[in-house]
C-alpha cells in the first residue's frame, strides 16, 4: 500500500512537471533588442481563431522561456529552446485578446546567464480566418516528381490531411503529377485538380459528385491548366498552355517555366463542353480569375511575336525568355449568352519593364492582388517577384511591402471575408516555398505577414517540400483520397468543343 502511494505521488508529480509552466528567471539581464525567433511572430496581427504560434528561440541558448501576457492573465512556456503553447490555453488567450494584443517576453539562457529581450506584441484581430487552407506539397524539383500530395490544413489546429496523394495509384512510369487545385466560392462541393501523365485527366467534383474529365479537344492547344470557377454559374475558365522548362546555367532563379503558346477556354460543367475565350495570335493568355460578381474575367496576357522562322518556337522562346512580360486584362462576361466583350488592359506591366501574373480579386471586388517580377510567368522561381495590390477604382498599383521579402513571393490569394491574404514565400531560404498570412484591414492596409504555424516550430527547417498554390477553404474536402483514387483509375470523360 505504501509503495503504491509513493508511486502514485511520483506519477502525479511527473504529470504536473510535464504539464506545468516554467518559471520566469528573476536574474535576467535586460537586452534592448527583440529576440531572434523562428518563425518571426514579432508584431504580427493574427486571426482570433488560429492555432498556437509556437516558435523557437534562436539565440544559441540552452534554455528559453516566454511569458505571454494577455487581458485575462499571463502564462509561461518553454521546452529547451522551443516555445510550445498549449492549444486550449491558447484558445482562451485568443478569446480574451480579440481586438487587443498578447505581449510576449522572451528569456534565453545564453552561456549560463539569462537574458531578457525586448518584449513584442502579437495583435489579435477580431476577424477570423477561413478554417482550412489547401496546398500542393512538392519538392522544389525541376522535371522529376514523386510523392506529391494536395493536402488540407485546419488552421485552427495543426491537423493536416491528404486530399489526394499521387502515390495512391502508382509510381515511376505509372506516376502522376497532380496540380492546380481550385474551389468554387471557397467551398469544396465544387472543386477540381488535374492529374497528368498516367491516368491523366481533370478530377472534377461537381455538386459533390466526382468526375474525371479529359478537357483536351482537337481545337485547343492542351487540356485545361490554370483554372478559375465562376462564382455563380457552373462554368470554369481555364488557360490552355504549351509549357516547357529549361534551366539557368548561372542565374539563381535556376528554372524558367515558359509557355510557347497559351489561350483561354471556358468549360461548361453541365454540358461538358469547351469553348474559346481568347486565342489571339501573338498573345500568351493565362491565369484567368473572376470578379466576385462573375461579371468580369481578369487574366494575364503577354504580347510575343515569334520572329525567327528558322528555329523552333520553343528554342526562340528560350533565347528570348526575358522579353516575355505579362499585363493584366479584364473582359466583361455575359452569363446569359456566355460571351466575353470589351477586353481592356487594366495594368500595363510591360510598359514599366515588368511582368504581372497570378491575379486575384478581393471578395469585395475593390482590389486585385498579383505577383510582379521582371519577366516571365512562373514567379515562384523568380527571386525578384513581389506581391502588388491594384486598387480597381483608382487603377493604382503598389508594392505590398508588408508581405514581401527580398526573395520570391507568389500565388497571392484572399480569405473569404477579405481580411486575410495568403502568399507563397521563399523568404526562409530562397528555395522552399512556405505559406504566409497577412492581415488586410478595413482601411485597405496590409500588416506584417507571418508563416503558417506548425506544432514543431522547426518543422519548416527539416521539411524538404514546398507549399504550392495555397488556397483558402471554408470547409474541408469531403471526397476521400480513396474515392479520388478509385475515380482516377477510370477512363476520363471526353469534353466536347462548342463552336
Amino acid at each position, binding site marked *: 500500500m505504501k509503495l503504491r502511494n509513493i508511486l502514485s505521488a511520483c506519477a502525479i508529480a511527473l504529470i504536473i512537471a510535464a504539464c506545468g509552466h516554467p518559471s520566469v528567471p528573476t536574474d535576467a539581464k535586460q537586452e534592448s533588442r527583440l529576440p531572434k525567433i523562428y518563425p518571426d511572430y514579432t508584431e504580427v496581427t493574427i486571426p482570433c481563431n488560429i492555432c498556437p504560434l509556437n516558435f523557437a528561440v534562436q539565440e544559441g541558448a540552452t534554455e528559453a522561456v516566454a511569458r505571454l501576457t494577455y487581458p485575462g492573465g499571463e502564462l509561461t512556456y518553454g521546452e529547451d529552446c522551443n516555445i510550445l503553447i498549449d492549444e486550449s490555453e491558447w484558445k482562451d488567450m485568443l478569446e480574451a485578446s480579440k481586438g487587443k494584443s498578447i505581449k510576449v517576453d522572451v528569456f534565453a539562457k545564453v552561456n549560463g546567464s539569462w537574458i531578457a529581450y525586448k518584449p513584442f506584441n502579437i495583435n489579435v484581430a477580431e476577424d477570423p480566418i477561413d478554417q482550412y487552407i489547401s496546398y500542393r506539397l512538392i519538392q522544389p524539383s525541376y522535371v522529376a516528381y514523386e510523392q506529391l500530395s494536395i493536402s488540407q490544413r485546419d488552421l485552427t489546429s495543426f491537423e493536416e490531411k491528404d486530399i489526394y496523394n499521387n502515390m495512391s495509384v502508382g509510381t515511376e512510369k505509372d506516376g502522376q503529377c497532380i496540380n492546380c487545385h481550385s474551389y468554387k466560392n471557397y467551398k469544396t462541393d465544387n472543386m477540381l485538380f488535374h492529374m497528368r501523365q498516367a491516368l491523366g485527366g481533370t478530377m472534377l467534383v461537381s455538386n459533390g459528385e466526382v468526375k474525371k474529365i479529359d478537357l483536351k479537344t482537337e481545337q485547343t492547344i492542351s487540356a485545361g491548366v490554370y483554372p478559375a470557377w465562376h462564382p455563380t454559374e457552373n462554368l470554369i475558365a481555364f488557360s490552355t498552355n504549351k509549357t516547357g522548362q529549361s*534551366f539557368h546555367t548561372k542565374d539563381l532563379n*535556376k528554372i524558367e517555366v515558359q509557355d510557347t503558346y497559351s489561350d483561354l477556354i471556358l468549360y461548361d460543367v453541365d454540358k461538358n463542353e469547351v469553348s474559346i475565350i481568347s486565342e489571339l495570335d501573338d498573345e500568351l493568355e493565362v491565369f484567368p480569375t473572376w470578379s466576385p460578381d462573375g461579371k468580369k474575367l481578369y487574366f494575364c496576357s503577354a504580347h510575343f511575336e515569334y520572329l525567327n522562322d528558322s528555329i523552333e518556337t520553343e528554342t526562340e522562346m528560350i533565347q528570348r525568355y526575358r522579353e516575355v512580360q505579362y499585363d493584366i486584362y479584364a473582359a466583361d462576361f455575359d452569363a446569359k449568352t456566355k460571351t466575353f466583350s470589351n477586353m481592356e488592359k487594366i495594368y500595363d506591366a510591360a510598359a514599366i519593364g515588368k511582368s504581372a501574373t497570378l491575379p486575384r480579386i478581393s471578395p469585395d471586388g475593390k482590389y486585385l492582388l498579383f505577383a510582379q517580377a521582371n519577366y516571365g510567368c512562373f514567379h515562384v522561381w523568380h527571386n525578384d517577384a513581389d506581391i502588388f495590390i491594384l486598387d480597381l477604382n483608382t487603377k493604382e498599383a503598389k508594392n505590398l511591402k508588408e508581405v514581401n521579402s527580398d526573395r520570391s513571393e507568389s500565388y497571392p490569394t484572399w480569405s473569404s471575408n477579405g481580411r486575410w491574404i495568403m502568399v507563397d514565400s521563399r523568404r526562409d531560404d530562397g528555395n522552399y516555398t512556405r505559406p504566409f498570412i497577412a492581415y488586410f484591414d478595413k482601411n485597405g492596409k496590409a500588416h506584417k505577414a507571418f508563416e503558417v504555424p506548425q506544432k514543431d516550430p522547426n518543422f519548416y527547417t527539416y521539411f524538404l517540400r514546398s507549399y504550392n498554390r495555397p488556397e483558402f477553404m471554408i470547409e474541408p474536402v469531403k471526397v476521400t483520397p480513396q474515392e479520388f483514387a478509385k475515380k482516377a483509375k477510370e477512363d476520363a470523360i471526353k469534353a466536347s468543343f462548342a463552336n
Partner: protein
Amino acid sequence: MHNILKIKHINAFAFILLAVFFLPIANADLLYTWQEYGLFMSTSSFMAETVSNYGLWAWIGSYLTQFFYYPWLGSGMLIAMWIISYYLIASAFKMQDEWSPIALIPFVSLLISVVQVGYWIYYINTPGYCFSFSACYLIAALITWGVSKIGKGFIKRRLTIAAVFIGILFTIGYRIPSFSRSEYSDFSLCIPFIVAAASPVFLAIPYEKVKLSMPLRTGIMSGVFALMCMATAMLNFSNSNFHSEMKMYKALDESRYEDVLKEAQSIKGEPSNMMVVYKNIALLHTGKLTDIFKVNNCGIQPAANDSLNVRIAHISGEMVYYQFGQINFAYRWGVENGVKRGMTNTRLKMLFRCAVFNKEFDLAHKYLTLLKKTTFHKDWAKEHENWIMRGSDFFSSVEYENIYPLLDEDINYLDDDQSFCEKWILDHFSDLVHPTSSKLEELIMCTALWTEDEYSFLVHFYDYYNRHKNEGIPLVYQEAVIMLASNEDSPITLGKDFRFDPIIVERFNNFAAEYQSYTQKGMEDKEIGKKLKPMFGDTYWWYYYFYTDFMIY
C-alpha cells in the same frame, strides 16, 4: 565440447564467415555507398514522413543502415540479426542438428539481396533496404519462437509454425520490394526476398523421418551449404568498374584526387565512362589534365546487371557538375535525384556545397541543420559550418581553390542536359570562347580533344601557343597539332606556324607509318588499334583513330 561442435553452431560459424567475406571484405565500398545514399535523421518529422510513406521497417532499416559508415560495424549488426534469427527459427522448428543448414536459407537469401543489387543501388527508393527486411524477419522469428514455446498440441506442429511465421511476417510489414523504374524492371532481384519469406515451408518438412545414413545426410547438407555459397558468389555483383566507381566517388567527395587517379591507374580492363569522367576531374584538380590520354580515356558502358538504363546524371550528376564548376546544374541533379531516389547524406552535402558556392547561405544552413541530425555526418556538418560562419574557411578550402577558377564565366543561358551530363559538360566547355582562368583554358582545350573536336581545340591553341611557346607546350597539345598538320587540307604547317619537339613529330610519323602498313595488309581498325596500343596507347592519335565507341550515357 560436444555442445560447441554441434553442426548447428558449425553452420552458424560457416555462415558468419560467408557473410563476412561477402559484406565487409568484398563489398565494403558497396556498404559505405548504401549509407551514403541513405539518410536517417533523429527528428520526429523524418520519422513521421518515413513511416507514412514507406512504413516503420523502412525507418528502422534507415536507422541501422547508417552504421555502414563503418562497414565492419554495420555488417556485424546485420550478421548478428541473421544469426539470432537463425537460432530462433532452428529452435521454433525444432530442427535436428544435422538438418540445420536448411534454416540458413532465408539468411543466405537476405545476404544475396544486399550484394546482388549492382547499379540498382542508385535507383531503388526503398529506405533502409539492407536492414528493414532482416529486422522484420528477426521480429517475426522472435514472435514465432515465442508461439512455439508457449503453444501446445496443434500449435506446436511444424506446419502450423510455418504458417504462423509467414502470417506474422507479412502482418508486421514484410513486403517484396519493387525493382522497377520507368520502363525497366528486374523481377530476378525479388527472388531472394520471396525465398526468404517462403523458406518456413522448407523448414516444416519432417526431415527426421527421412531415413538416410548419417554420412549421407551430412553429405547432402554439406552440398546444400556449398550451393548456398555458390549462389552468393554467383549473384554477388562483383563488376570491378562498379566497385571502382564507388571508391572514386568517395575519394572525390573527400577531395582525395590522387586516390582517384590511383584507382583509375589500377584497373585492368576498360574503364566505364563514369570512371573516365572521375579520372579527368582528378587530373583537372591536380593540374594534370594534359595527361588525359596517359591514363585510359576510352570509356565503356556500365555493366549493369540487367536492362537498367544507367545514366551518369542519375548516379552522380550532382558531383560531376559540381566538380566542373556548374553549380546550378549540380544543384538541379541533387534535388532531382533526391526527388526520384530519396534524399541522402551525400546529396545533402552536395546541396550544401552548391548553396555555399551560390552564396545562398540560408539554404546552405538548412542542409547543414539536417546533416547535424544524422549520427555519422554531423561532424562533417559542424566542420563545414565554418564555410558559412567564417568566409575565410571557405575561401581557403581545397574545394574553393579547385572549383572557383571554373566558375568565373559570367554568361548565363537557359539549357537542359536531357539527362546526359557528360555530353553537356563536354559540349559546354569545348564551346566556350573566352576562358577567364588558365585552368578553364586547359579544360576547354582538353575537352575539345576529349570530344575529338580538334578545330575547337585549334581555335584556342593559337593564342595559347603564342603565350606559352617559350615555356614548353604540353605533350598532348603537340600531339594534336602534329596530327592536324598531317592532314592534306590542314590550315597549319609545322615549322612555320609552330615549332615542336622533333621526337614527337618522329613518333607520330612512326605511328602513321605503322598504321598505314597494317591498313595495307588489309587489317581492320579494331585489330590495328590492338596492335598499336602497347606503343601508342597513351597518345592522342591512338585515342582519335581507335576509340570509336564513344557512347554517352
